[in-house]
């Protein structure tokens, strides 16, 4: 019997099969608080997640994921909970983040736990696409490249390429990754929480820099309005419907690269549909850690994450950054 780790470890080659555009995979609006005008964000923690090792315990990660999803959906049975998030006939993309290298990338244990639950909820292995910018980023997450359509697929934009025609929103014009534009019906963002030398914080919305050809062009102005504009592009706004944010390990300063001297283990997942509310919650978490370590606020450090407020403004309307309108559940 293959273990969760094994089934992704086997390298495979094969033709890349691009699917056609389909309707979104999100089964229904999950957020029961939508009717009250609040965005739900779940922060699930496990203080013993890492034990004595550098990597989190796989079993505890699966339990933490189940707890987060159960709290978010209101369904205790994890498979039933996932069935309320997804439709089985859809192609689901998992946009991971391996930019920071081996030390601070989306954890393999989280990716495998999600893949396990997706399959149990009826998603065929070939309808799951794990992706990031390139092979290096995916390998940093501990993944193996595979384009075999009968298995869980895992490859980067360096394999699938980008659209030839740019798309524009506001001041931002980009060429989208074909994995997003052509292949996936729904994308779950799996960012990892990090300090960022320019934008202050990188998490749910900033993770989308990995779905465009030349993200460096979106960095001026502390990534503002680049992050907000990019997330307003229809394919990003409509397909990236859910975030399971990896805050199990983080860098609270010196990011987005790996700085072990500033490494921190919050042992948490931050989950939600409202990407702005998720980022606001993550930002506050980083601010608290920086204060604890005697570091200045992001504002004082000259890199406040202004893109979060921009994403919530009347022009973008991607979500809310108003704490009064965020229902934060800590479990």
């Amino acid at each position, binding site marked *: 019997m293959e273990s969760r780790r094994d089934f992704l470890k086997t390298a495979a080659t094969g033709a890349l099969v691009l699917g056609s555009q389909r309707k979104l995979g999100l089964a229904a609006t999950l957020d029961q608080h939508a009717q009250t005008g609040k965005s739900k964000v779940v922060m699930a923690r496990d203080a013993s997640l890492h034990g004595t090792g550098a990597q989190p315990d796989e079993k505890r990660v699966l339990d933490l994921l189940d707890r987060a999803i159960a709290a978010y959906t209101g369904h205790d049975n994890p498979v039933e909970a996932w069935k309320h998030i997804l439709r089985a006939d859809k192609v689901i993309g998992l946009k991971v983040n391996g930019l920071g290298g081996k030390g601070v990338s989306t954890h393999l244990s989280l990716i495998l736990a999600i893949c396990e639950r997706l399959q149990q909820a009826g998603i065929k292995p070939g309808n799951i696409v794990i992706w990031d910018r390139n092979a290096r980023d995916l390998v940093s997450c501990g993944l193996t490249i595979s384009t075999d359509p009968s298995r869980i697929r895992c490859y980067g934009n360096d394999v699938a390429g980008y659209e030839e025609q740019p798309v524009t929103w506001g001041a931002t014009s980009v060429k989208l990754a074909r994995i997003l534009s052509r292949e996936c019906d729904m994308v779950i963002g799996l960012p990892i929480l990090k300090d960022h*030398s320019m934008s202050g914080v990188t998490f749910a919305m900033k993770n989308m820099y990995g779905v465009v050809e030349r993200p460096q062009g979106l960095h001026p102005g502390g990534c503002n309005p680049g992050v907000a504009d990019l997330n307003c592009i229809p394919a990003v706004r409509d397909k990236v419907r859910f975030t399971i944010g990896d805050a199990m390990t983080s860098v609270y300063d010196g990011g987005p690269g790996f700085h072990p001297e*500033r490494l921190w283990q919050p042992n948490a997942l931050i989950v939600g549909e409202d990407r702005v509310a998720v980022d606001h919650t993550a930002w506050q978490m980083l601010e608290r850690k920086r204060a604890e370590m005697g570091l200045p606020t992001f504002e004082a450090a000259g890199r406040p994450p202004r893109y979060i407020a921009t994403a919530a403004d009347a022009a973008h309307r991607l979500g809310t950054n108003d704490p009064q309108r965020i229902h934060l559940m800590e479990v």
Partner: protein
Amino acid sequence: MKYCLNWKWAVAALVMVAAVAGTGCKKKGADPFPASGAVADWQKSSETRVFAAKDLWQYIDGDAEQYISAGVVSTSTSDYKYKGELEATADVYTMGDATGARKILESGQSSDAKAVQLGDAGVAYAQSVIFRKGSHLVRIVAYESEPDAQQALLALAHGVEAKL
């Protein structure tokens, strides 16, 4: 006689140009990373990759700007393994001048930095070593916390320093 002198000057000039060009090529093409076994217990576990300043975002998107503003010219990187287990990455940033290397080194230090004798200046942490030598800034990072990681990283750092 006049033609003879001109001929000799021409040969001398060619020899000098060839010598300078040869030296330049050697430095430019030199790999700054020690080969496997050159530093005890360290294996070079990847090819050396080199990024020009304009392509640095491909390696460290988001971090690239601070190096570009400090005048980075090129970046070389290689992975290593210590005793077959501890994984590490060594980066050599070649700046336009020593000022750029100093700027990066001094801007990134935290209070637990321990000064070490490496190059022109250097600091060490439990899992990383950073130093500058001339226009080079070197950063070596280990991905696991091991009791002997710092000493091992320092040994590798000395190996890199000797090649700069």
